[in-house]
C-alpha cells in the first residue's frame, strides 16, 4: 500500500518527519518498504499484512497515525445532493448469488461531463503510481485509495435495459474486459450483467463495452462486497490481478460500502457535474460476524494481558487504545472490559486479538527481555548422536557433505531403484526444472553433482549426503527413510573401507552378511549388498560403463547408500569394555588354496566359528595369486593371518598350532580349502 503524506495530512496531523512517521508505523504493524520523494510529496510504501485490509486506504493508515500520536482523525462525511429522479426509475439490481456477493449498491448520476481530472487529483494518483484516465474513473480510484473500498463506474446508457444482474458466470461464457481481451469464464466467477451479457467480472475488472468514455453522459456507481475466495479464484484463473481484486481478496469493510458510494458521487458532482438520482439501490447487507463465544461483543479480562504479554498495561491505557481504534466500549469493571469491534476490523473477534491490538499500540518495546523459564534438561536424540558420529567419520575420510533437492526428474527414478519398485510420488508442479518426482534414493542426485564437478575439472570429488527418501505405501503417506549416500572416485573396496569404519564407530558389534546385486548402473561383480539382521542395510559398488554413460561421467565412480534406520537398530552408543589380556598374541599366516568361487566371508566365518575363543582376529592379506600350473585351474590362493591370544597365559606354539590345524580341517571339510604346499 503506497500512501501520500500530503493526502494523509488531510485526515490527521502528521509527525514532524517522515522518518519518525515510518519508524513508528513499522513498529506498530505497517512495515516500511520504501519512501520515495514525488515532487513535494512523499510516496511511502507500507507492507500491510493480509489481516489488515482496513489499512488499504489512506483513512485507515491515518487512523493508525491518529491512535499512535493521540491526535484527532478528520474523516469526511459525504452528503451528496440527490436531487434527481428516484433511482428506481433509472435502474434496478437483481442479485442471484448472495453467497458470492453479500451486498450490492448502485447510485446513478445523470448528465456528467467527462473530462480530465483536476490537477490536485491527478497529482495524488500519480504519487501513488496510478494512471489517470478521466474524471469519473479517477474518482473511483481516488475513493478506493481513500477508504479501501473498490468502486466501479458503468456507462449507464450502455447497460442493456439500464439494469444490473449479479449472478454466477455460466460455463464457457465470454467476457471482454477493459483491457480489450476476451476471457472464457469457468462458471466459478461472479459477473455483473445487464439484461443481455456480462459487463464486469465482479471485484476483478470492468468490461470494455460499458466503460466510461468521452461520450458517457449517465454513470452508474457500483459499490459492493464480493466474496474473497471467488474474487481470488477469478483473478488467479484469468491472471487479472488488480488493486480491486487485491482488496476484495482481503475483505472490505461492510459498512464502508455506502460511505464509499456517497463519497464517490459527491466528488463526481463536484468535479464532473450532473444530477444524482434520489436514493440508492442497496441489495443485501453485511455478512454476519462471529465474535468469540457467540457474544455480541468481545470480553477482555485485564489479567489476561499480563498472562500473554508478560507486562502489565494500565486498564485506562487498554480502554483508550481500543476506543481510539474504533471499538465501542459496552462495559468496564476492575476485571474486564467489553467492546464491540469496528466494522472495518474483521480480524478482531477474540480476546487474544484485542490483546495484540493493545500490545502493538502500547509498544512491544515495553515487553521486557526477560525469560522466567525454569531450567530444564534436554538431550540429543539417539539418531542425532549417530548422525553426528557418521559425519565425523566421513569428513575424516575426506568426504565433503552435499545437500541436494528432494525431488528429481522422472528419468532419475528409473535409473537406480535399490529400495522400491513402486512408482514415485509426483508433485503437482515441478519443484525445479522438470524435477517432479520425490526421490527414492539419493545416489542419482549425488552422481548429477559429480558430473557438475567433473565439468568444472575439480580433481577430487568425494561427497556424501544424509537425507530422506520417499517410498510410497498403499494408502496414506509414504515411508520416509533416512539414507546416507556416498559417491566416490575410489573402488568398491575403498568405499567398503569407509562403510566398515562408520559401522565400527556406531555399531561395533553389528554383523552383516553379503549378498550379490543385480547390477544395473552398478558393475554386477564389483558391487555388493550388505544385510543386517535380515534387513538390507547398504548397497555399494562401482558404476558400470553403462552406468557412467547413463550419468554422463567421464571418470570412474563408486557409490554407496546405507539405510540409517536399519543401522539404528544395532547402534551402541555406550560401549561396554572387556578385560584385556596382558599376554602377547601369537600369529600364524595361512596360505589356502580354494576354488575361485569361495568368498573371503565364508573363509572368515569358518575360521571364527571353529577357531574357538583363542582366535582374536582373522586378518585377510591377499587373494590375488592365480596360476593354473602351480595351484590348478579355477583356484586362488588366499593368504590370511590368524591372531591368537589367551586371557590366561602366553600361548605355546603347540597350542597355537592346535587351533590352526582345527581351523584348517574345517576349511577343507566345509570349503575344500587346502594349505598351499
Amino acid at each position, binding site marked *: 500500500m503506497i500512501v501520500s503524506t500530503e493526502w494523509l495530512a488531510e485526515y490527521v496531523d502528521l509527525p514532524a518527519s517522515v522518518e519518525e512517521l515510518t519508524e513508528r508505523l513499522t513498529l506498530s504493524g505497517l*512495515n516500511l518498504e520504501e519512501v520515495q520523494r514525488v515532487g513535494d510529496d512523499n510516496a511511502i510504501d507500507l507492507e500491510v499484512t493480509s489481516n489488515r485490509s482496513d489499512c488499504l486506504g489512506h483513512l485507515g493508515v491515518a487512523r493508525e497515525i491518529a491512535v499512535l500520536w493521540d491526535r484527532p482523525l478528520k474523516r469526511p462525511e459525504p452528503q451528496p445532493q440527490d436531487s434527481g429522479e428516484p433511482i428506481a426509475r433509472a435502474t434496478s439490481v437483481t442479485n442471484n448469488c448472495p453467497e458470492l456477493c453479500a451486498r450490492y449498491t448502485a447510485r446513478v448520476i445523470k448528465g456528467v461531463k467527462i473530462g480530465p481530472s483536476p490537477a490536485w487529483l491527478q497529482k495524488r494518483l500519480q504519487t501513488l503510481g496510478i494512471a489517470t484516465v478521466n474524471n469519473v474513473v479517477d474518482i473511483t480510484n481516488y475513493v478506493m485509495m481513500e477508504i479501501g473500498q473498490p468502486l466501479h463506474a458503468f456507462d449507464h446508457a450502455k447497460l442493456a435495459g439500464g439494469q444490473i444482474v449479479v449472478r454466477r458466470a455460466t460455463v464457457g461464457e465470454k467476457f471482454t474486459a477493459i483491457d480489450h481481451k476476451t476471457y472464457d469464464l469457468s462458471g466459478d466467477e461472479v459477473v455483473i450483467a445487464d439484461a443481455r451479457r456480462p459487463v464486469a467480472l465482479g471485484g476483478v475488472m470492468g468490461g470494455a463495452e460499458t466503460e466510461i468514455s468521452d461520450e458517457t453522459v449517465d454513470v452508474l456507481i457500483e459499490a459492493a462486497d464480493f466474496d474473497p475466495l471467488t474474487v481470488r479464484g477469478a483473478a488467479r484463473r484469468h491472471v487479472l490481478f488488480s488493486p480491486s481484486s487485491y482488496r476484495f481478496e482481503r475483505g472490505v469493510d461492510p459498512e464502508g460500502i455506502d460511505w464509499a458510494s456517497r463519497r464517490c458521487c459527491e466528488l463526481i458532482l463536484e468535479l464532473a457535474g450532473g444530477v444524482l438520482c434520489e436514493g440508492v439501490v442497496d441489495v443485501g447487507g453485511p455478512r454476519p460476524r462471529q465474535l468469540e463465544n457467540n457474544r455480541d461483543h468481545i470480553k477482555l479480562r485485564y489479567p489476561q494481558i499480563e*498472562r500473554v504479554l508478560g507486562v502489565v498495561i494500565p486498564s485506562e491505557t487498554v480502554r483508550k487504545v481500543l476506543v481510539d481504534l474504533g471499538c465501542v466500549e459496552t462495559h468496564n469493571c476492575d476485571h474486564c472490559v467489553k467492546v464491540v469491534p469496528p466494522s472495518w476490523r474483521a480480524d478482531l473477534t477474540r480476546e487474544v486479538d484485542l490483546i495484540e491490538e493493545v500490545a502493538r499500540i502500547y509498544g512491544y*518495546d515495553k515487553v*521486557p527481555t526477560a525469560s522466567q523459564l525454569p531450567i530444564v534438561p534436554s538431550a540429543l536424540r539417539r539418531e542425532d548422536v549417530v548422525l553426528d558420529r557418521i559425519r565425523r567419520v566421513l569428513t575424516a575420510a575426506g568426504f565433503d557433505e552435499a545437500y541436494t533437492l528432494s525431488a528429481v526428474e522422472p528419468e532419475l527414478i528409473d535409473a537406480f531403484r535399490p529400495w522400491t519398485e513402486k512408482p514415485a*510420488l509426483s508433485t503437482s508442479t515441478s519443484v525445479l526444472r522438470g524435477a517432479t518426482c520425490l526421490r527414492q534414493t539419493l545416489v542419482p542426485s549425488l552422481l548429477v553433482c559429480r558430473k557438475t564437478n567433473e565439468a568444472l575439472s575439480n580433481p577430487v570429488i568425494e561427497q556424501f549426503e544424509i537425507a530422506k527418501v520417499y517410498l510410497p505405501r498403499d494408502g496414506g503417506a509414504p515411508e520416509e527413510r533416512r539414507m546416507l549416500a556416498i559417491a566416490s572416485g575410489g573402488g568398491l573396496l575403498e568405499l567398503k573401507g569407509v562403510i566398515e569404519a562408520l559401522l565400527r564407530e556406531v555399531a561395533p558389534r553389528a554383523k552383516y552378511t553379503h549378498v550379490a546385486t543385480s547390477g544395473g548402473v552398478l558393475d554386477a561383480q564389483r558391487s555388493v549388498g550388505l544385510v543386517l539382521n535380515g534387513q538390507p542395510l547398504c548397497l555399494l559398488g562401482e558404476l558400470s560403463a553403462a552406468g557412467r554413460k547413463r550419468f554422463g561421467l567421464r571418470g570412474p565412480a563408486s557409490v554407496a547408500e546405507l539405510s540409517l534406520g536399519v543401522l539404528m537398530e544395532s547402534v551402541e552408543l555406550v560401549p561396554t569394555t572387556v578385560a584385556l589380556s596382558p599376554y602377547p598374541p601369537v600369529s600364524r599366516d595361512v596360505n589356502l588354496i580354494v576354488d575361485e568361487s569361495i568368498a573371503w566371508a565364508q573363509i572368515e566365518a569358518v575360521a571364527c566359528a571353529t577357531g574357538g575363543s583363542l582366535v582374536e582376529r582373522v586378518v585377510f592379506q591377499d*587373494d590375488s595369486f592365480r596360476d593354473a600350473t602351480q595351484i590348478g585351474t579355477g583356484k586362488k590362493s588366499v593368504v590370511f593371518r590368524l591372531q591368537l591370544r589367551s586371557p590366561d597365559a602366553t600361548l605355546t606354539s603347540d597350542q597355537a598350532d592346535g587351533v590352526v590345524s582345527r581351523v584348517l580341517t574345517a576349511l577343507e571339510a566345509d570349503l575344500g580349502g587346502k594349505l598351499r604346499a
Partner: protein
Amino acid sequence: MALADFLAELNSLASDAQAAFEKATDNDALEALRVEFLGAKAGRLKAIQKGMGSVDKTDKPAAGQRFNAVKELVEQTLEAALTRLASATTTSSAEAFDATRPGKPYHRSEWRVGRLHPITQTIERMKEIMGRLGFTAVEGPEVEDDHHNFVALNIPESHPARDPLDNFYLATAVAGQNGTAERLAAAGPDGKPLLLRSQTSTVQIRVLEETPPPVRIVSLGRVYRPDTADATHYPMFHQIEGLCVAPGVTMADLKGVLQMFWQSYFGMESNEPIEVRFRPSFFPFTEPSVECDIWHDGKWMEIGGAGMVDPNVLRAVGYDPEEVTGFAFGLGIERICMRQHGITDIRDLYTNDVRFLAQF
C-alpha cells in the same frame, strides 16, 4: 579407375577390417589394426581414398558415398571391438573379484579433511544452543497431511496458503486406460491430498498431540514452497522452529529466549549485547504475531517470525488455552547461513561444487 574396381576394393577392405577387429584379443593388437586400416598417413582406407582421384568424374558422387559408408562402418567396428575388450577385462577379472573382502584405505594424492555442508553447520550450532536453553530437537515427516499442515495450524479451508499454486500437492502415478499413466491425488488419512510440508510447524503439532505440557522443542528440517529459483529463492529450504508451551509462558519469555539464543549464536564474533525488537505481523498460528529483528553489527537485522501460540492451535491439540500459554518462533536457516558466510546465491548451497564446499 572404373567405379566397379573402386567399389570392390572398398568392399574387401570392409570385410577384412571386420574380421580382423573381431579377432583382436587385446588393446595393443586393436591399436595395430586401427593404424593398419584407419591410419591417417598410411592406412588402407587412406590409400583407397587417394585412388578416388582417378575415378570417372560422373561416378565420383557414387564413389564418395560408398567410401564414407565404409569408413563409418570400419570406425563402428573398431568402437565395438574396444567396448568388447573393455567389458571382457572386467568380466575376466570379475570372476575372481571377491566383494566380501575387507575394505581398503584410500590412497589420495592430497590429504584433506572433508567439510560439513554449511547448512549442517548452521543447524547444528542452532540446535546446540537451543539444547542448552532446554529445547529438545525433534523431527517429523516432510510429506504431510491437510490436518497437520493447515487445519491444526489454524489455516482454514478458505485461506490463500492452501492454494494449489503455493504448495506441492502430491500424486501417485497409476496405470490408466490405453496403458497411459494417470495422476491420482495421493491422499492422507483424512482423504485430503498429501503435500510437501510448507513449514516445520507441522512437527510441533505432532509433538503437542502426543505430549502433555510442558513442552520445549525445536523442530528442524526441509520445507518446500513453489518459488522460482533465483539468487534468494529456492523451492526447498530449511527451517528451525522453537516452541515452548507451559503454564505462565509469556511474550517476555519469548523475547528473553531469543535474546539469549542470538547472543550465544553471535557470541563468537561479537561482544556487544544483542538487542531483540518485535514488529507486529500476522501468522495464522500465532496471536499476537511479530517479526523479530536483532541489533547486530550496527543495524537491525530481520531474523524471522514469532508469536504466542494461537489459542485455536492449543485447542486443536487438546490443550486448554486457559491453562497453558506458549510461544513459537521460526527462522529460515539459509538466510542466516548465507548472511554469515557472505553467500550471495542460494543455489550455490545445492550445486555442491567441491570448491564451494571446501570453503567451510
